[in-house]
């Protein structure tokens, strides 16, 4: 997997509330990877972890995001050689905007603009292949990638609880 720390201010607060947003359309094959990951995490009932599953990021998520210290955006990604890719994300000003076009960075920006808090943000992108067909179910590679990403996230959450960067727990 790839870990790409962004150019974000480091924070050191403790006892963090973590939000996992898994988004995508499960009716479009591997586009359902984000919800599938969130669906795998939710039943575990992990302490300090809120799980949100949705079709797409929208402006509405700003309120929920602002109520947390760390947010992990889980989404499918095309053309990703690795099983998954973890990237830091900060606020961004979108040049255009639509209900289908809220990026993680824009969602963070909205959280700050509307509700006064910008948590630390991470994108957990999971590699998928089949996006064009209408239909449920993951491709075999996406399914394998989902297992690896889920295993990684479960292992990483304790570190995130203590530190928004959680980088101390990571290995390449």
């Amino acid at each position, binding site marked *: 997997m790839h870990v790409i720390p962004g150019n974000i201010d480091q924070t050191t607060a403790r006892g963090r509330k973590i939000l996992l947003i898994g988004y995508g359309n499960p009716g479009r094959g591997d586009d359902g990877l984000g919800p599938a990951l969130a669906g795998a995490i939710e039943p575990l009932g992990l302490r300090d972890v809120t799980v949100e599953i949705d079709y797409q990021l929208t402006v509405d998520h700003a309120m929920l995001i602002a109520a947390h210290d760390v947010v992990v955006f889980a989404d499918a990604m095309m053309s990703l050689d690795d099983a998954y890719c973890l990237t830091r994300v900060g606020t961004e*000003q979108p040049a255009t905007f*639509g209900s289908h076009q809220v990026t993680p960075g824009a969602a963070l920006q909205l959280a700050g603009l509307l509700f006064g808090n910008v948590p630390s943000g991470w994108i957990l992108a999971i590699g998928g292949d089949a996006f064009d067909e209408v239909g449920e179910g993951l491709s075999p590679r996406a399914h394998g990638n989902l297992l690896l990403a889920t295993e990684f996230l479960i292992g990483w959450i304790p570190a995130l609880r203590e530190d928004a960067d959680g980088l101390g727990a990571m290995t390449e």
Partner: protein
Amino acid sequence: MSRKIVIDPVTRVEGHGKVTIRMDDDHRVLDTRLHIVEFRGFERFVQGRPMWEAIVLVQRLCGICPVSHHLCAAKAMDVVSGLSSGALTPTGDKMRRLMHYGQVFQSHVLHFFHLASPDLLFGMESDPAHRNIVGVLESFPEIGRRAVLMRKFGQEVIRVTAGKKIHGTGAIPGGINRNLDIATRDRLLSEVDKMLDWAQDALAIARGYVEDHRALVDAFGSFPSNHLSLVRETDGALDLYHGRLRALDAASKPIFDMLDYCDYHKVLVEDVRSWSYMKFPFIRDLGPETGWYRVGPLARMNTASYIDTPMANAAHGALRAFSGGGLNHSTLANHWARMIEVVHCVEEIRDLLHDPDLQGSDLVARGERRLEGIGVIEAPRGNLIHHYRVDEHDQVTYCNLIVSTTHNNEGMNRAVKDVAIKHLSGQARITEGMLNHVEVAIRAYDPCLSCATHALGQMPLQIEIYNANARLVDRAGQCM
């Protein structure tokens, strides 16, 4: 040199579409087309599924209005279950209505505040870097906060009636699988008056825009057309959940009225054109040239005899008066109509929350099993038709969906052409602001061009301009 301009995709709409504008050597607009570039394929996807599952599955058609598909499919399966259309138990009927009003409310709020308001508040040709929802939030933070909280209220209504915010399971063949407990009711009631106040404020913004920009509104994508919607069976009032079909011509004369929607296929025909995946419905007796019609909030304001909630009815009267007592054909008046419906939905939600039938325990009705069912509902974007055949093993063997945006296909295409001729013709240099006029016309219909696969890196925003030799001469774009 003649040119072909492509807007691909149209932004701030639900899903993906593309506009092409062909211009001659004198920069006059020759032709325009709104292409729908995604193939939905859902009708086939549903075939072979159990009837109960279809009601849940069809929600995956759309991330914005899944509840409309959920309820429309449920209405069709009610008929398969042997009920006369609309013959639910009082609790079943009112729980579904509550769900539907929550859906229409939150969908309209999303459209008005997040997609349309940047054009209305800043102007169509204002700086595009600011002409977006973030710009609105920066300049009008209270409006932005209200929009989020109104959406949250609507989604909470959906969650408590459908079971989940998305992909709910509340509606089942013949009724509903839950009622509303008192504590949940009281929690919603504690917010409803605030929602009504905010809805009135939103209505004032939309009405004010149309009244203050009358010359623009009257000339912008304004053309006579037929209008179609459900109306209440007993008196022709606005009814978003159930009723009979009414179609009026441009002069307000009925084409058909109080038609049982199970006979929709006798009066509507779906035309196919080679350049779009989306069909072009028209009224059979009038033919494709004159039989096309518009649906949606403005069409509903035109077809409804009145509205049975007082604040929305007063607003309906004001719109009628503004329109000289006749039908309103202005594309931009859709925003005003949409906010009237926002007020109506909160009034309905408030009244329903006070109704003890929501705590009833008689949730499901049954009749003699049938092999075919049709459901029709007024979704946020307009009339929505679901038609199924189900075999003796409860498997769906046939599915036909006519979604609101399909009904509006011809109307949107005409609006694009009207606006392109008025704002682009004769212009040697086409600016972003001019092209945005075209998008504003499409956006006013709140089209849902089918939900997008949106994996990271899959959201191109691109405008391309071609010369007569099909050579790309300009491009502006980014990857979201």
